[in-house]
């Protein structure tokens, strides 16, 4: 009689899910590998080169801001009728990128997706830095950033208050809440790992700095119990928050009556687009990081494949959004809506529209092919293509709707100036500078969460 293979294996092996990280890792090897990246005295030469270039670009951003504040926003290309251009395109682009970090850290936690564990820390850092870049654009677009506190309900001698019926003030509340909650979530996740760094650090100064940041964390079971509760509650709070943020961002457009903006599909279509762009950015960052720091055991091909599948799914939702925009412009029976879509197809910005369709709808379909999902180089290339496509999407939504709205006598073309580009490229440098500092000084993978998914972490009864 043949033996039943299921009966011959021990019960704990049949029920345990397939591992998401490489084999042979232990508590000590995981701890030492990840903490050594932050604690090592020797900084790799590549880090200096990358951080140096990013820092120079960040300086370009500071220079642009300085010139902008001294001169006024006239140095940018936006003017009536295109009163919103790069400042809002880049704001929406950056905010959207941030959404993947919260999705990975909160939604995938609630859905018990263990593979999130290797990528959540740096995805959360990405969120935080992307939101910082995003916030700069509306702040500087006010022209007088030193009066930014007027956006908040602060009692003042003028007796003036913000307009709570305006989506722009909803945006202020949504984005500042999002930035705060993302920072809290990130820092709470870091506390146990900061304690690990404190205990592993050899240098006295490092011990003191990490020790202060760890706030005396000692890994007590009673503390862990509350910590896990807090982490889960934060995830539960961040999940509706992340959906609300891009919904409110889309309200900035959808509440207006400009053709192409006044549509109910905007909130879901914006949220899906945000996750699409965000996962593209996570891939763009994860692929070089795992290579340079030898983290292939932690960020495995399975992670990259899963992310590419999410990109494929959200990309299709975005494609549905483009289809619905086209359909509704015909179905609405409105002359202006119909003209808006024909202007996108055939107008002066048509090359950008078709590039957007190419980048966001056509090219990512090769992710259906298994071989493409298994190729790191192909995934990296597609992630860049999607980032460009999502930027073009915001350009099309904002510029094509505004430059030809209702009265042909007030139509005009929009051209970005050098300072538009320098601000945009500068924020990319600022973002990458922060990322470089983060991977150098903080654990880029959550050490304590990796410990929980190791085989030796299971309590055998």
């Amino acid at each position: 009689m043949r033996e039943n293979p299921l009966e011959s294996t021990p019960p704990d092996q049949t029920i345990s899910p397939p591992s998401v990280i490489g084999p042979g890792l232990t508590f000590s090897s995981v701890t030492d590998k990840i903490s050594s990246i932050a604690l090592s005295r020797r900084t790799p030469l590549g880090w200096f080169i990358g951080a140096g270039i990013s820092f120079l670009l960040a300086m370009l951003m500071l220079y642009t801001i300085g010139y902008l504040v001294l001169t006024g926003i006239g140095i940018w290309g936006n003017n009536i009728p295109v009163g919103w251009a790069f400042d809002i395109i880049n704001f929406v682009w950056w905010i959207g990128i941030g959404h993947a970090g919260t999705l990975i850290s909160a939604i995938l936690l609630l859905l018990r997706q263990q593979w999130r564990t290797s990528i959540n820390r740096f995805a959360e850092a990405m969120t935080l830095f992307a939101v910082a870049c995003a916030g700069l654009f509306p702040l500087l677009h006010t022209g007088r950033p030193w009066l930014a506190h007027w956006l908040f309900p602060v009692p003042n001698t003028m007796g003036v208050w913000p307009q709570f019926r305006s989506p722009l003030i909803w945006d202020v509340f949504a984005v500042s809440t999002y930035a705060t909650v993302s920072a809290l979530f990130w820092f709470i996740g870091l506390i146990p790992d900061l304690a690990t760094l404190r205990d592993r650090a050899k240098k006295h100064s490092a011990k003191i700095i990490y020790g202060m940041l760890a706030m005396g964390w000692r890994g007590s079971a009673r503390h862990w119990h509350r910590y896990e509760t807090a982490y889960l509650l934060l995830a539960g709070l961040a999940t509706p928050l992340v959906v609300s943020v891009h919904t409110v961002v889309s309200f900035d457009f959808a509440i207006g009556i400009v053709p192409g903006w006044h549509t109910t599909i905007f909130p879901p279509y914006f949220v899906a687009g945000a996750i699409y762009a965000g996962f593209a950015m996570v891939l763009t960052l994860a692929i070089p990081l795992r290579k340079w720091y030898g983290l292939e055991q932690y960020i495995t091909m399975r992670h990259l494949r899963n992310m590419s599948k999410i990109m494929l799914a959200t990309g299709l939702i975005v494609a549905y959004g483009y289809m619905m925009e086209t359909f509704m412009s015909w179905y609405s029976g409105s002359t202006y809506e119909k003209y808006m879509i024909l202007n996108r197809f055939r107008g002066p910005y048509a090359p950008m529209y078709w590039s957007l369709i190419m980048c966001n709808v056509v090219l990512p379909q090769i992710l259906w092919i298994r071989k493409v999902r298994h190729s790191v180089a192909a995934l990296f290339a597609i992630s860049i293509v999607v980032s460009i496509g999502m930027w073009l999407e915001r350009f099309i939504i904002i510029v094509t709707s505004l430059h030809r709205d209702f009265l042909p006598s007030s139509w005009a073309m929009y051209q970005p100036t050098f300072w538009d580009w320098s601000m945009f490229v500068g924020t990319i440098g600022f973002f990458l500078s922060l990322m470089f500092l983060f991977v150098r000084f903080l654990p880029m993978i959550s050490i304590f969460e990796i410990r929980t998914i190791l085989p030796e972490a299971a309590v055998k009864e």
Partner: protein
Amino acid sequence: MNVYGLMAEFESPTAIVAATRFAYEEGYRRMDAYSPYPIEELSEALGVHHSRLPLVVLIGGLIGCFGGYSLCYWVSAVAYPLNIGGRPLHSWPAFIPVTFECTILVAALAAVFGMLALNGLPQPYHPVFDAPRFELATRNTFFLCIEARDPKFDIEKTRTFLHGLGATDIVVLER
């Protein structure tokens, strides 16, 4: 000598959970276990079941919700009423996004600061940090500390008891 407790070291999560269960059954209550990652069974073995944290977060969320809505109402209808075509000043649908964001914000702040406060953090010094190998508690080692304020604590008897549980190393901690 003013004793804080006895700190026993264990090598595996299974060992520390078993040891904690035995200690709890033996009648020890004033004790704590230290691990490099959260172990659900371990807090259960210590008799930790409920946390007040969800209540703190709920209260925070309610404060945010009522605060956010009241802010919108007070500003739009009381402090700075704008008559735009006779539209109602108390336009509640327009107040929902800000109310929602304030709810999430205060609830999240309550979750983080409530957790830190209930855990007594930041706490720069704690007697357990004096244990010579305690640095490994954030790496790969598990500790069980039976504190001297436990009524059943007796330095010799407790030490023998911990030895019997398979502790690899036992040290006396001073206050």
